[in-house]
């Protein structure tokens, strides 16, 4: 009964309207997909074809030579490895530290707790770009220029991640932690054997977001990495047209291959990622 009332009111418009609404959504999906499709098809074309008329989305002839050039003439494989290593290490450490801080805020009482939490929120409002110049000078002092420490360490404990972890860890039942204490578990033991396993989905979300951010980051790596064998994918791809005299097709091939793993992970975990991201915004 209720259902009928609802349907009649919201969907009053009926079948024609529904068809219209469906096609609007479909057009939105298509417009979003076309640049991706164009990227993929462009990577299989010859240079001349991209600069000739008529403009088409599909190649007239499929060619693999852009990929040959990409692997043969550039450091693409090295960049790929560098990026996996850097993003992986930064993610592992960043997630662990964020979970530790989140646990402290969610499950313990201590002096200055509110002040520390205010600090977490305050860092959310400070734009990272203000720090660029002094951070760079600091990296020079540390001797970290052209090393991955410069990419991995600064900003590794992200305030947003602490915030997210705190929210999830709050849901871990106190009784469970107390029972473990009575059994003689240490606080670190409780963190590793009770809290972490129970918030695994949140760890996954934070890990993916950290990984994607590091994978895509451009401005900071551009400032601290100058040797082209040390490059990460983003800088490598951005500068590919310069020293290597590479054609746009090869750049599209690199773009496609560097986006692929991120897209696959996202497709597998989209529900959790979107929920994790949007949760904070709904509650305000």
């Amino acid at each position, binding site marked *: 009964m209720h259902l009928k*009332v*609802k349907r009649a*009111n*919201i*969907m009053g418009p009926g079948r024609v309207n*529904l068809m219209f*609404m*469906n096609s*609007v*959504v*479909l057009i*939105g*999906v298509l417009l979003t997909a*076309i*640049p991706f499709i164009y*990227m993929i098809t462009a990577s299989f074309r010859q240079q001349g074809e991209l600069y000739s008329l*008529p*403009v088409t989305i599909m190649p007239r002839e499929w060619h693999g030579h852009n990929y040959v050039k990409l692997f043969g003439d550039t450091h693409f494989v090295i960049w790929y490895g560098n990026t996996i290593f850097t993003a992986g290490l930064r993610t592992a450490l960043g997630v662990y*530290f964020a979970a*530790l*801080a989140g*646990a*402290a805020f969610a499950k313990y009482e201590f002096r200055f707790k509110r002040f*520390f939490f205010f*600090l977490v929120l305050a*860092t959310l*409002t400070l*734009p990272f*770009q*203000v*720090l*660029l*110049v*002094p951070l760079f000078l*600091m990296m*020079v002092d540390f001797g970290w220029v052209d090393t991955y420490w410069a990419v991995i*360490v*600064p*900003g590794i*404990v992200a305030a947003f991640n*602490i915030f997210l972890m705190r929210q999830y860890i709050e849901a871990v039942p106190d009784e469970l932690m107390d029972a473990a204490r009575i059994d003689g578990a*240490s606080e670190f033991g409780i963190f590793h054997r009770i809290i972490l396993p129970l918030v695994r989905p949140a760890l996954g979300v934070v890990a993916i977001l950290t990984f994607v951010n590091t*994978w*895509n980051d*451009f*401005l900071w790596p551009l400032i601290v990495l100058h040797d082209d064998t040390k490059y990460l994918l*983003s800088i490598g*791809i*951005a500068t590919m047209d310069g020293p290597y005299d590479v054609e746009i097709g090869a*750049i*599209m091939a690199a773009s496609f291959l560097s*986006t692929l793993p*991120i897209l696959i992970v*996202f497709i597998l975990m*989209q529900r959790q990622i*979107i929920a994790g991201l*949007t949760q904070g*915004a*709904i509650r*305000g």
Partner: protein
Amino acid sequence: MSARALTTADNPQPFALADWWSRNQRKVIPYIFLAPFLVSLLVFTVYPAGAAFFLSFQRVRGFISPEEGGGVVLEYKGLDNYERLLTKDKRFRTAIINGAEFALGTVLIQMPIALGMALLMNAPHIRFKVLARLAFFAPYITSAIVVGWIFTLIFQDRYGLLNAALNALGLEGVGWLTNKAFVMPALIILGLWTWCGYNSLFFLAGLQNVPDDLKEAARIDGANTIRVFWHITIPFLRPVFVFVVITGLIGSFSLFSQPYLLFDSGAGPGDAGLFPVMYLFFMGFENFRMGYASAIGYLLTAIILLITGLQLLLFRLWRV
């Protein structure tokens, strides 16, 4: 009490620390848990923020060679950097205006479309929901560099996909990246593609949070769809609006990678693609005017805080 005294007396030195730890670890552990965050905050945020503030009153006079220990020679210039930025520097003004125009485009064009898309996706019996979620999130997680390269192709004058589409509709193509007047529209189109779907997912999450029985009650009381939307749905979306608008505005002034790539490490024709963070980068890392760059950073922070504060105030007024 006496039992504890006895144990301590029995094992005087070696176990005292372990004993103290077992009694006090719950008090101490939160500080240990917070240590990585606090250290990172102190070393990589608080210190550089202070250093940037100090630098913003200085001018770089020269560099000491690495053999002599390296470093920078500074000269105190008082408020010179700020004064110059606010009164004389036309490029900085251009960068701020461009940021503001992009922000306006984001709020006025992107948000309504995003909200509309979310409403469509939230309607019952709509198909392609899973597909749409996937598609709308994909541009957001794609690297800005990759997006930049794809759109250099799409925005080409003669062989670009966008102009080809315009031609097919019987319209004349334009120089998206070469004509000063079309640079901002081009960037707004790029922004629309990148963030519109992403924002619509936030609106969608907000819409799914509106209690159905509340809407139903209003409808039984005789409210029509528009009234229900205006008086129930929109107020529930308030936090989402706050989030989406503020992150959108901050993002607008911090735009860097996409224009940097589209305009070949430059700022576009007549600086039409120059944004504040880009200007900071040029000043600090290409001209090595680090004091000046730090002053740009602080002015940018001031602008962002001002906008955020105004937004929060505005949205608070809205609640009443």
